[in-house]
């Protein structure tokens, strides 16, 4: 079984985000970047499948600027076999990424796509679903457990009301949630070995995909700063404020 893991390069989760002065987006110059944490979980799961013998090959794919190669290398250092970079300096919307991924899935003949449920930059939570629709494959989203069986794959989904268990036929698209696993640290020797693994590069044109934007960002603003709280001196005062000021009770 060949597993494809799409990964996204995003601003490191520990960095404090700053909005650009002209309100066109967030500051990314000289900001530390890293693999999207949900993608990391997907890579970990794919590598575990490889180690368990259920996956024969794990291919990391990323769509983005040339530096996305570093993010692919992170996945290779964690244990994936090779990488595919779809290089595009233009900003890519979820639909464009889904179309690009579809082209790679078909080119590679992948049996399973394991990806993050969303990226922590745009928080769109769309690409996996769009990809499944474009491919006409079954999808399991927000999964916290995964088991390969003879007929296909059994997944546990984290839904609002609790857990939902699905049996999916293969091939399928799965998007992973936080509790699926705890990603490993790439070992230092594997970081060095990752250098020698291959990364093939394509352009959107090579894949015959039109990535021109369909959305327009009007402006980006920082959330209002939190105001300092007030200490109330009695329960009665608290209830009064909740009722008459905040109007929540």
């Amino acid at each position, binding site marked *: 079984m060949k597993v494809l893991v799409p990964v996204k390069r995003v601003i490191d989760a520990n960095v404090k985000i700053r909005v650009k002065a002209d309100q066109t987006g967030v500051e990314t110059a000289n900001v530390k970047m890293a693999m999207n944490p949900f993608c990391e979980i997907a890579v970990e799961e794919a590598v575990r499948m490889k180690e368990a013998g259920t996956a024969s090959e794990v291919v990391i794919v990323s769509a983005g600027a040339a530096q996305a190669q570093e993010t692919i290398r992170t996945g290779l250092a964690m244990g994936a076999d090779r990488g595919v970079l779809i290089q595009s300096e233009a900003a890519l919307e979820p639909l464009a990424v889904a179309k690009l991924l579809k082209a790679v899935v078909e080119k590679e003949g992948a049996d399973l796509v394991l990806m993050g449920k969303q990226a922590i930059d745009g928080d769109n939570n769309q690409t996996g679903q769009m990809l499944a629709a474009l491919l006409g494959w079954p999808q399991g989203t927000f999964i916290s457990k995964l088991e390969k069986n003879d007929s296909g794959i059994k997944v546990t989904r984290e839904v609002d009301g609790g857990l939902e268990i699905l049996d999916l036929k293969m091939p399928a698209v799965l998007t992973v949630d936080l509790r699926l696993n705890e990603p490993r*640290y790439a070992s230092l020797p594997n970081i060095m070995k990752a250098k020698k693994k291959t990364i093939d590069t394509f352009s959107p044109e090579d894949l015959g995909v039109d990535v021109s934007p369909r959305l327009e960002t009007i402006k980006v603003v920082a959330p209002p700063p939190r105001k300092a709280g007030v200490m109330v001196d009695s329960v009665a005062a608290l209830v009064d404020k909740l009722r008459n000021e905040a109007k929540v009770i």
Partner: protein
Amino acid sequence: MSLDRETFEQLLDTVRRFVAERLVPREAEVAEADRIPDDLLDEMRALGLFGLSIPEDYGGIGLDVEEEVRVAFELGRTSPAFRSAFGTNNGIGSQGIVIDGTEDQKRRYLPKLASGATIGSFALTEPDYGSDAASIQTSARRDGNLYVLNGTKRFITNAPSADLFTVMARTGAKDSGAGGITAFLVEADTPGLSLGKPDAKMGQQGARISDVIFEDCRVPEDAIIGGVEGQGFKTAMKVLDRGRLTISGTCIGVAERLIRDSLRYASERKQFGKPIGSFQLIQAMLADCETECAAAKALVLDAARRKDAGEPITKLGAMCKYYASEMVGRVADRAVQIHGGAGYLTAFGIERFYRDVRLFRIYEGTSQIQQLIIAREMLKEFRQ
């Protein structure tokens, strides 16, 4: 640099994350138990931390000196006891073999040292000979094609967990000085080798030391590092030469950690209605810490680059060890002061660092010995 920038940055980033996420949260636990738990040692092995300085051909990562020092900056940001667990395998416990060992010795020991399957330890100091290491009296008497070792080594880091000792012993006459010393590789299970009880000490709980005692301990002649008698003191000095830079790197990492902790405290703690960081006397302490730490860092990076370029760095290495270890002592002292009463309490961990860093001015050559080396080299240069 032996690695390309991107790969090295990724490696450094992984170490940084490992330190922050896995080691920092367990500092107090390790100090209390005086032991590094097995699960953490396993994680360190899996990450590859035991083979940082061992060449790739022998299963390590083969960092050059600058890279090793930059990794030491990161590892310094937590209790030095953690680094000590794999410190001897990267430093004094393996470098004798790396620098002067025979091909056979390298193949036999380095891969296991690099993976952490074997723990290496370095036994030079004796009860009567510390700074005056050229006078050690542990003897190695030739008996056919064996050598018989007798004597006691003191303060030996990681001896309680070691599988392999690099032992400096005298093959020459009692008064043969440095030239009569030979370095042996002695496996811990060799009959005649025993250990003292681990010594209780001021700081760095979790890093353990003990005496190593040799009573008619017989080793084969191919246990001599490099196969030639009388080279042991030179080997030991080369090992310590490189080690001075990594210890200095660790001192800088600890100083940076303490400066951050102090900055945070100075920003949060209020007295007289203002954060204490707004008082100029506190600011002076912060400024001194930052300046001295940056000076030490620049010195160590310069020395490391020169060493990688093949320049002799005996004087510079001693300057690094001297300045960086004294610097972190001053920084730790100021960190306690900035934290006030909290700095003195165990719960805040600052006093632990204060005790931990005291060792850096003592082992692998005291500050006084470094001063002597620096001045000796200066006078030598002046005469030339």
